[in-house]
């Protein structure tokens, strides 16, 4: 097997230092936390899609489902923050188990369609259930404390999220490089052959689906605690699409790609108002101002361009440039 070219280690440390210093360099901590939650979500998605080739269109159900449960536990049941987050992860695992068992029976696009359809059940449940607050969403989720640390402070919360994020990222990286991860990559490259070597491919696929579900749930639970609210957007299929887009932009099947993609897309959504006003003033065309209300249009355009011209994503393209063996991306 040709050695995959790696991103130099000093880049990873550099990025980590940057993340640690960011709140002092003018990054609004809540935006930083949003980025990290989505980055974790994208990494979880990438664990499944990038290394196993299973493109789930239903990850929003895990992300938002966990967010709602954590929110419910913190607001209505008065649970402590870590317990609430843990419950969110467990619920995501449970949803992931049902989804995974059904979806790994099908291949390729079928897998995507099945996950999408199953996620709609969760969406409609959240739309109708009482505790979710329907269209209004679940409001006023308290951040609480963590081992005595006051999470109300944005900076404290920021570092807690950072620690969770880095630990999760490192753990997922270990999974990919473990024997388990190698089998997964073998499955994605040649499933019948892997089966004939004695591996039960479906079990491996289900296993990675569960891992991915757990981390997606962790991301969703963290996000609901950080933001203090949970809305239907997080369980909607457009969020499943968003996480695919983030991973694709950054680079499917790369360590850092999903993080980069999540940062880019989050910043873009955050700054869309400024960008659209700038374009309006520059060109004098009032229509540009409406861009702000339909960020999905911009996301869609990036999606189309990415699929047509830039399938390896940013990190994938960089890797190629930095030499080493060709990475099969298609």
């Amino acid at each position: 097997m040709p050695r995959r070219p790696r991103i130099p280690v000093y880049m990873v440390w550099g990025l980590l230092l940057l993340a640690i210093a960011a709140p002092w360099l003018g990054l609004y901590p809540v935006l930083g936390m949003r980025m990290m939650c989505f980055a974790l979500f994208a990494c979880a998605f990438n664990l499944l899609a990038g290394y196993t080739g299973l493109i789930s269109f239903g990850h929003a159900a895990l992300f938002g489902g966990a967010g709602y449960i954590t929110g419910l536990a913190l607001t209505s049941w008065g649970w402590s923050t870590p317990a609430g987050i843990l419950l969110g992860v467990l619920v995501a695992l449970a949803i992931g188990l049902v989804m995974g068992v059904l979806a790994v029976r099908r291949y390729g696009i079928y897998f995507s369609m099945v996950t999408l359809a199953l996620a709609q059940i969760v969406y409609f449940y959240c739309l109708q259930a009482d505790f979710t607050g329907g269209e209004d969403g679940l409001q006023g989720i308290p951040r609480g404390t963590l081992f005595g640390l006051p999470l109300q402070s944005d900076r404290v919360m920021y570092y807690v999220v950072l620690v969770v994020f880095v630990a999760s990222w490192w753990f997922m990286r270990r999974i990919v490089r473990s024997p388990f991860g190698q089998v997964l990559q073998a499955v994605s490259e040649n499933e019948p052959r892997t089966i004939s070597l004695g591996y039960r491919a479906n079990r491996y696929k289900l296993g990675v689906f569960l891992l991915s579900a757990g981390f997606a749930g962790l991301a969703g639970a963290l996000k609901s605690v950080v933001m203090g609210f949970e809305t239907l957007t997080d369980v909607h299929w457009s969020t499943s699409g968003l996480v695919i887009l983030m991973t694709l932009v950054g680079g499917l099947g790369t360590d850092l790609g999903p993080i980069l993609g999540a940062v880019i897309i989050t910043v873009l959504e955050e700054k869309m108002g400024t960008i659209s006003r700038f374009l309006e003033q520059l060109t004098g065309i009032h229509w540009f101002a409406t861009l702000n209300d339909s960020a999905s249009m911009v996301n869609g355009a990036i999606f189309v361009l990415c699929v047509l011209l830039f399938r390896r994503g940013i990190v994938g393209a960089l890797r190629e440039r930095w030499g080493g063996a060709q990475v099969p991306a298609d």
Partner: protein
Amino acid sequence: MTELFGVPVALLLGQLLLGLVNGAFYAMLSLGLAVIFGLMDEVNFAHGAFFMMGAMFTWMGGQYFHLNFWWMLLLAPLLVGLVGMLVERLMLRRLRGMDPIYGLLLTFGLTLLIEGVFRSFYGVAGEPYSPPDLLGGTLDLGFMYLPLYYVFAMLASLLVCLGTWLLIERTKLGAYLRAGTENPSLVQAFGINFPLLVMLTFAFGSALAGLAGVLAAPIIQVSPLMGSNLIIVVFAIVVIGGMGSVMGAIVSGLALGVIEGLAKVFYSPISTTVVFILMAVVLTVRPAGLFGKEK
């Protein structure tokens, strides 16, 4: 006999009929997907956006050009078909030979793009569109008043489904299509312009979605978001029916419309999810779908 299973018969029959109308739409939409999938192994996520465009064009035709429903019934599918043709020629064709997942991702992005463009002009609120005068009346069935237009829409959809089925199963062109499904390069070797065939098939499938949109315009509110939720239901129906089969698409489309109608009568909270639950059941029992063959 006014009650059956504890439900008023009139209500039951009414929902059954409405379910059948919905089912006809499902059938037409999943048919378009099936035709495209059969030839290209491509799942067109933008099918819902094409459906929406059909309805929006109909509304816009009336609003800006004073073209009535009948004109738009002809024009809108042609326009949507043209859009489909461009999408295939300029974008999807570049992805031929790659993992079909890229086609799904591309059309997903297109859906966001098309929806976003329409939203930026028309917002998310729906626009009402009234049925043509000729079909404005209602039919007194004794247990309910059924708008004439519903009858028309249902019959038109069924006719289109039947026509498409005949086209694929009984004509020379259909034979080319079916042969292309089996082995594209062999078909090409026999002197048939396969890329052209693919483009026209995609246009035809898109036009079917557009036609469904026109027919749906007077029934549901015309809005930029009308297609995307529907398309996921149609995906589930296609999985239930089995992707390969045109007949499977038609039959399961109709059946699921009726089942949804029944769900509304007996336990309404489940009516939005019953299709997905059935899909899960079918997947456990017959992973290839009811009419599908395991490849």
